[in-house]
């Protein structure tokens, strides 16, 4: 399994290296803006970093889908499927590698964001005061005697991020399933791409409904996000098993 993951990483590292390089560049722009008191650069840096955080996660997830597609539909597929590895291992390596990459990317941008905000407040006392005021204001908004967002603490920020990352992993594994169905079950048939896209929409909608049923009644924002994230992970695991099962039984490369 580790060996398979090594090759999955090998297939995607170039994209990741580029992402890392651009992020470093954006961070430098931000720092120059911050310490050189050049607001234009500062704003550009912030914008770029936010764009990279979202875009990076998008690229990593979709890159993994493209790799899976290539590994099933080109001659390259023999590399994986002639080895004595089950489809569970082959797909498992892909899901794990992608999941870990998403998690690490998320963590890196989270840490970078925290660092940049800390640096910003240290440099600019007025902003810090403004932020504290906003925070107080938000936590004073209550619905039925309970705080709406709660105090904006690290804890809730972390749970939101976790929920978002897990949700993205679920989206990626759902696309995996759609791609495998298109390749293994509908191969050569007309509209196989369209059918699998529609299938993806239905599956995503179903997952969202189911998650809502389970976690909808949770009042506490932190708990809600945490549970949502966990549900997404469980659903991702289900997607993985179903996808691997279809590959094992029906896939011809």
């Amino acid at each position: 399994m580790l060996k398979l993951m090594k090759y999955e990483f090998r297939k995607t590292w170039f994209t990741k290296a580029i992402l890392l390089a651009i992020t470093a560049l954006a961070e430098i722009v931000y720092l120059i803006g911050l310490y050189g008191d050049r607001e234009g650069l500062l704003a550009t840096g912030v914008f770029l970093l936010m764009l990279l955080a979202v875009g990076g996660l998008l690229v990593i997830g979709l890159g993994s889908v493209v790799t899976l597609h290539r590994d099933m539909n080109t001659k390259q597929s023999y590399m994986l499927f002639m080895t004595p590895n089950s489809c569970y291992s082959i797909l498992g390596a892909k899901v794990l590698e992608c999941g870990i990459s998403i998690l690490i990317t998320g963590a890196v941008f989270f840490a970078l964001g925290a660092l940049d905000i800390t640096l910003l407040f240290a440099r600019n006392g007025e902003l810090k005061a403004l932020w504290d005021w906003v925070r107080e204001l938000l936590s004073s908004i209550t619905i039925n005697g309970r705080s709406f967002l709660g105090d904006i603490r690290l804890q809730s920020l972390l749970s939101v991020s976790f929920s978002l990352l897990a949700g993205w992993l679920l989206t990626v594994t759902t696309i995996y399933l759609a791609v495998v169905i298109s390749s293994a079950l509908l191969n050569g048939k007309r509209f196989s791409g369209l059918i699998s896209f529609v299938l993806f929409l239905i599956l995503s909608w179903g997952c969202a409904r189911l998650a809502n049923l389970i976690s909808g009644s949770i009042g506490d924002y932190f708990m809600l996000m945490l549970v949502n994230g966990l549900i997404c992970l469980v659903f991702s695991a289900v997607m993985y098993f179903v996808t691997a099962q279809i590959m094992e039984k029906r896939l011809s490369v």
Partner: protein
Amino acid sequence: MLESKELTKVFGSKTAVDHVSVKLEKGHVYAMLGPNGSGKTTWMKMAAGLIKPSSGQVLFQGEPVSLNSRKHVAYMSTEPYFYSWMTIKDVGAYYADFFEDYSPRRYQALLQRMELTEGMKVKTLSSGMMAKLKIAVTMSRDALVYMLDEPFNGVDLLARDEIRASILQYATEDKLLLLSSHLVEEMEMVADRALYIKEGRLVECVDLETMRSERGVSMADRYRQIYGHTEG
């Protein structure tokens, strides 16, 4: 050792392999013959477990092909299949990672014979060099069954000699070799048995030396009889 029972594969409206039942025994080199599109590749891919049959089955040592059979069956496809970022060294490392029967020593020896060096990039190899690399890495496995699809395709005369020698060197009594080709002359001396496949069906499986001594017919003659246009 390798047996197909009523093996059939249908692609859409085309039957690529049509109820093929055949038993291949170890200690022999089989030539799988037939024009392009006669079903040779599809049969092999089903035996390698890459394509799932529409019906029928392939047995390796009496068991349906599975993960276990992949450990002992070395399959080489016609098309290049290595990752484009690989060097020749990476290809060997990949086989070392996934096949217990891979021998780095054998790989080194074969690379040397084929005049390939480890630093070469797969992407930049000519078709002849690629054919040699595929043979080198496939024959580096001490497998029980070797299935080589069109090993002589796109290869010049000298490289053919090297490929032939590499194949013969590892064709021992406990191994089964199956080579497909539409270059019949190339297979005449290497194989001792021939499978003639026509339009997805097995026409016959013959022992070549027996056919030569009893009927005075070569593998190529028989090929012409089976596939040639009947003239008068």
